[in-house]
């Protein structure tokens, strides 16, 4: 994995329509991957938040190509396919975008450990938010351990996702 990540603060214009659709397409793919039945005991509950990884990556490097409306649609589609109350994932992804966008300059063109640390903080916040939301929606104190395991799994899978997304980005959009 390249230690230095691609991207600049002011993203260059991309003409290629395939490249322009890449952020949305990969985020949608992450959604599909996260509902795949993996036939591994206990996996369903601990599935890493793949969609969050894609959203984090693209919000840092190409926020212009993953607009809020696209993100909203992806979130709603994930909610509907996963059987989660509609709006939950959309809300989480949009809030994640808002937070990452605000601190974006700290992560563009930084060494990977910085980017990873940023994702760790984001995941912590997102998982806590999700847990609180579901406790409120279901009116019971949901077991917190599942949330912790899921956060750990999500953070530890991020380097692979980041590598793949970075590679795809460089292939289709070229280096920054």
């Amino acid at each position, binding site marked *: 994995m390249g230690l230095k990540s691609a991207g600049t603060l002011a993203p260059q214009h991309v003409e290629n329509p395939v490249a322009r659709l890449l952020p949305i397409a990969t985020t949608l793919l992450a959604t599909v991957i*996260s509902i*795949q039945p993996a036939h591994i005991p206990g996996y369903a509950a601990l*599935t890493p938040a793949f969609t969050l990884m894609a959203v984090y990556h693209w919000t840092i490097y190409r*926020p212009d190509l993953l607009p809020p*409306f696209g993100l*909203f649609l992806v979130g709603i589609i994930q909610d509907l396919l996963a059987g989660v109350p509609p709006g939950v994932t959309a809300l989480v992804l949009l809030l994640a975008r808002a937070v990452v966008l605000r601190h974006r300059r700290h992560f563009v063109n930084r060494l990977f450990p910085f980017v990873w640390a940023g994702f760790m903080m984001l995941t912590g916040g997102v998982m806590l938010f999700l847990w609180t939301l579901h406790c409120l929606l*279901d009116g019971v104190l949901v077991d917190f351990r599942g949330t912790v395991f899921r956060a750990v799994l999500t953070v530890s899978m991020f380097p692979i996702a980041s590598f793949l997304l970075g590679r795809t980005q460089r292939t289709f959009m070229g280096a920054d």
Partner: protein
Amino acid sequence: MIGLSPPRRAAMQRVALPLLVLLSATMVILGKADQVMFESLRVSVTDTASPALDVLSRPLAALGHLTDRARDFVAVYEDNHRLAEENERLLNWQQAALNLASENARLRELLKLTPEPATTFITARVIANSGGAYVRSLMVHAGSENGVERGQAAVTGEGLVGRVSEVGSRAARVLLVTDLNSRVPVIVEGPQQRALLTGDNSERPCLRYLDAGAEIKVGDRVVTSGQGGVFPPRLPVGVVASLDGESPRVEPYVELSRVEYLRIVDYGLADGLPKPVPIASRGGRRTEPLAGAQLGRR
């Protein structure tokens, strides 16, 4: 938005973000208040996506088969031994079952008992799960076109998996017995105790509303009681696995995360689950159907 200049687009995105956050939050609240509101949208999205999900889920399933095969190969000797012993035991059981079946038939004849409704099966492949800690459901690639109906039981050879909670024309969602909203009336065999098997999103659902003096032991079999009219009686569900904590926990017979094919079973009981009515058409009277309230709906 494509024709806009980059600064204008950025400005629009800034305005769109809070609006969409607000919209999502509203959807969450509305969906909570009226759980039926988004059902048709959910069903149509699921239907549209089901062929793609079916194709996409095959490579992972194939990989799973490969690892299974490798494991089988390693364990072939022990498996053979175990199966030979099991076969001997089962042959004895077969004799017992044949005797009981003929005795049963004679007794029914004597009592002029009306036969139970014929059961039909639909075998369906699992194409998606809920992928998260807060919902336990599966999506299967069979829908109303294949005869799947809301409320039907989903089983495997080992036992109960859950019940059909939403049906599209090509795909359906099965709410697992471990889901927070799942309530299954059961009997604990042995003490013959009635209870409600209540999911809480953990791997082991718990037994609620047991009698105070109920003597439940670890290892007691748990089967459906048939109360409420959704599941037929005596479907195997699981065994009592632990007695610590507030209520006993049940280990389901079916390894729910490894299910690849399941059978949707129509026992002619599906009518037991009333169709949910959207709040708008309920008018002033709020007539909550009893079985629906008892069994929980998503």
